[in-house]
């Protein structure tokens, strides 16, 4: 049930751990292996703050397998303050409360349940920042 795969991605999924370029300061998410010929130590682990703004959003009403218990749910592209964009669900809000450029913050939530013999997959979602 993809146990190793979800375990391998836990730092990125649970705490939004990406990478920062030691020389240019550029931040990227998700983390990636070095390019062919690139020095191994150029990119160091870097935990993003988990704040950003909604680039765009929609609602899933016809879910894929594994998400049948969730619709309707909000999905969004979020531009993080450090620069990278991520795809994630929006939570703790309704469709009519969301707008492009709305500030959001990361929370850790259940993404899906792989069933009695599988994992409960946790990861990042985003919610409106309540000021």
């Amino acid at each position, binding site marked *: 049930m993809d146990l190793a795969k979800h375990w391998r991605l836990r730092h990125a999924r649970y705490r939004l751990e990406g990478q920062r370029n030691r020389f240019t300061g550029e931040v990227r998410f998700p983390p990636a292996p070095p390019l062919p010929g690139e020095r191994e130590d150029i990119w160091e682990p870097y935990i993003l703050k988990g704040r950003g703004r909604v680039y*765009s959003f*929609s609602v899933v*009403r*016809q879910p*894929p397998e594994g998400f049948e218990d969730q619709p309707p749910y909000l999905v969004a*592209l979020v531009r993080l303050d450090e620069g990278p964009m991520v*795809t*994630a669900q929006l939570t703790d809000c309704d*469709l009519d409360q969301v707008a492009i450029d709305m500030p959001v913050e990361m929370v850790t939530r259940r993404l*899906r349940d792989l069933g009695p013999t599988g994992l409960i997959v946790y990861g990042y979602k985003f919610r409106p920042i309540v000021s």
Partner: protein
Amino acid sequence: MRRVYIIGTGATPVGEHWDRSPASLAIEALTGALGSIPASRIGALYVASALSGTLHTQSQMAALIATAAGIPGVEAVTIEAGGASGGVALRQACLAVAAGAVDLAMVVGVEKVTDVLDARREAALALATDVDWEAVHGVTLTALWALLMRRYMHEYGYSADDFAPFPINAHANGVANPRAMYRFAITAEKVRNAPMVAEPLGLLDCSTAADGAAAVLIASEGLAHELCATPVRIAGSATATDTLALHSRPDPLWFQAAAHSAASALRMARLTHSDVQVFDVTDPHGIAAALALESSGFAKRGTAVALAREGAITPKGRLPLATGGGCKARGDVVGANGVYQIVELVAQLRGQAGVVQVNGARVALAQCMGGIGVTVATHILTLE
């Protein structure tokens, strides 16, 4: 490199073929493309199928279809590139014939998607996203298109209603296509009042995944003129890729792979944008067609929706699109779409398109896309 020609086409109706196997659909299409040419003359078989591994749970479809066609032993390869599979398979056939490796190559696109329930099909389609960073969040391809549509509306000041000309045109054209899944016209009012699938995308701006197979027979120049009275030349052929995840791109509303493959194909054909008279692109939603036209250089950014509203995409317009009904009315045959496009555009160039005929069409462009602009194959067809 040798010149490459299309000398035969075939396709099944698109729809819910519960009583038929993928092999049965593929053989009907292949037989149509062969005409009177014996199957034994096929030098290589390229089978495009995006979902046979996941939904039909069968790999090596090419070997299965070669056997069903009575030519086991032939070089046969299965091509998977999501919704671009058909165009990528055609590209491989072009390379094989152009290089002189074979004189006759068959391309078959086949998809069988209605044997499973909706949720499983949605999950299979979502494999064309970056599964660890997109699909894991429950995002579907439709939802990703909806995100792009909303952002496009925000950037350029359109309403959701403004996209209606795309499905309206597709349905109007689909009426004339005997193989189309939906052969009825729709109105702006119906599009506007349709239930939401993924806001701002409504049901009538969403294609329906369906079963079907299409085939095209590719020949070298000498053989083409020997075997066919009206060969259509593949003057340009190119594929390009972009990042798997939409969120990894500097500008999600710009499809770099579409731009690259369209420019390469036109350059190879020694033609310019203004030479192209009829188009088919991957158009499951209006936003998809708009971004394909803009990224490929046929409309300025932010203007494709306005052009559609002005009638440019109808058979009588400047950018005739989806003359066979497109993904929306023909039916979305996923990995086979790219082959259906060729079948429909060959009919255009041969003047056999009936009421949707684009007058005097001699240059056509087919572009198919896997995922959201991930793999894009563009072909330029010409009548010599």
